[in-house]
């Protein structure tokens, strides 16, 4: 029984890393959003499984938040936003897919090596969870860095937050208040970014963040 408990937790957390890698591979916005929805779904399952094995019912609330907001509402809203902005056919990456995935691989290696060294006294599920959570977080940052489009940067930000939630649920005894406040701050950040996106578009006729650099006078050669 211990074996299968560990196996499923391992599989779900590792699946989250895998889906993050899949995100790095996507260069179309709709595909990126669909993979993000899948990412959140895997997160939901992972959190629900943690709730079961830790016997912590409040984690089900976290799972429900992940399911409703991140799997359904945010992807749907972003889909709509992309359609309104008329950028659903754009492909924008700063670096190619190959180098990005290589860097991503390096980040996963870094995260696991660092985390496993640091947490040598914790129990295996929590250790591995933390290692995978750090990888997901770093991969989210990587998505934000390697994309020019503001919408995909938002997706990177949300991915990063999924990593945070994974870390929080892996560690036992995270209070519910903290989680709910994190979830809502993310939601508010999302709304602010959404408003911001439309303002950027109104002013510059594009959501390419290079336009902001030009505006500040730092022109790229």
């Amino acid at each position, binding site marked *: 029984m211990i074996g299968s408990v560990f196996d*499923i937790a391992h599989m779900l*957390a590792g699946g989250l890393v895998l889906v993050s890698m899949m995100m790095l591979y996507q260069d179309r916005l709709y595909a990126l959003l669909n993979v993000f929805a899948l990412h959140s779904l895997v997160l939901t399952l992972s959190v629900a499984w943690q709730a079961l094995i830790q016997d912590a019912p409040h984690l089900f609330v976290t799972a429900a938040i992940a399911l409703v907001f991140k799997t359904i509402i945010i992807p749907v809203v972003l889909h709509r936003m992309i359609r309104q902005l008329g950028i659903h056919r754009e492909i924008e990456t700063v670096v190619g897919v190959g180098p990005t*995935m*290589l860097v991503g691989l390096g980040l996963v290696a870094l995260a696991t090596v660092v985390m*496993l060294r640091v947490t040598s006294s914790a129990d295996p599920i929590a250790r*591995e969870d933390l290692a995978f959570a750090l990888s997901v977080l770093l991969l989210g940052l990587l998505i934000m860095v390697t994309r020019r489009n503001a919408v995909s940067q938002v997706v990177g930000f949300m991915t990063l937050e999924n990593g945070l939630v994974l870390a929080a649920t892996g560690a036992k005894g995270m209070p519910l208040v903290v989680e709910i406040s994190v979830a809502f701050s993310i939601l508010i950040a999302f709304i602010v970014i959404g408003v911001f996106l439309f303002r950027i578009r109104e002013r510059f006729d594009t959501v390419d963040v290079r336009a902001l650099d030009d505006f500040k006078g730092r022109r790229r050669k």
Partner: protein
Amino acid sequence: MVIVSALFVQAFQMSLVVLLAPLLTGIVRLFKARLLRRRGPSLIQPYRDLVRLLRKEAVVAENASWLFRAAPYLIFAATWVAAAIIPTFATGLLFSWTADLIAIIALLGSARFFLALAGMDVGTSFGGIGSSREMMIATLAEPSMLLIIFTLALVAGSTQLSAIAVFMTSSQVGLRVSLAIALIALVMVAIAENARIPVDNPATHLELTMVHEAMVLEYSGRHLAMIELAASLKLLLYISLIACLFVPWKLVAFGSGPLAYLIGLFAYLAKLAAGGALLALFETATAKMRVFRVPEFLGAALMLGLLAALLRFVSRGL
């Protein structure tokens, strides 16, 4: 007496793969046609095609060398040997000690080598472009395949297929994310190696996109029959490999009697049909990618292979 029955079972397995290979191709074609709401050819159409090709005269280009004539038989032989040693319905057969994963890759690699040489032999531009593209795909597909094998070998402690399959059916191995990633990477490599849809389309002769078909464009008659059969065998090989490594259920051990063999055989047939149906479904749902996207696709398989090996070390460190 034991050696006779062992030889008999091994011989049965060897003829089984070569007899089933065209049927598998037929299954994939039929499923695909049905998914596109066409009626599709009958299941035995690939056999009829092969018989027809064998009866026809082989036309050989004037400046073709002996290599052009010999290559189809070499390709077929290498692919057949590789397919025949993969455990299909039973493990631990007489020649199962030869079924090393690295040996299988080497056999397939030599088949590909001769195919590329044959493509360039006549000196037409299509053959040359097909060969160069095939080599481009191979340079990425082979390392990913090797990485997948290393992951499996790290998990099971052996590169021998029978041993890995036995290990996978035992209770020692749980759900492992490295295995899941290795499975995805293996499926990607299998699609590329078999020239299936996102990488290459086996059903067209469109100049700009063909890879495998461009190399075999000059072949006809019995030579073409050998190459077609080898291509079917390769598809069967990859599906059997995936089935034997990742769904090894009902794979019987050698010497467990005819009834057990029969059960194993039916399970194998079911796995083949399921694999063919899934392939047809996937092919219908995806569009072919540009040739210049292929390195990215296979690069992703390579990265996944690396990631699988990496995570394997992580989970062992716990």
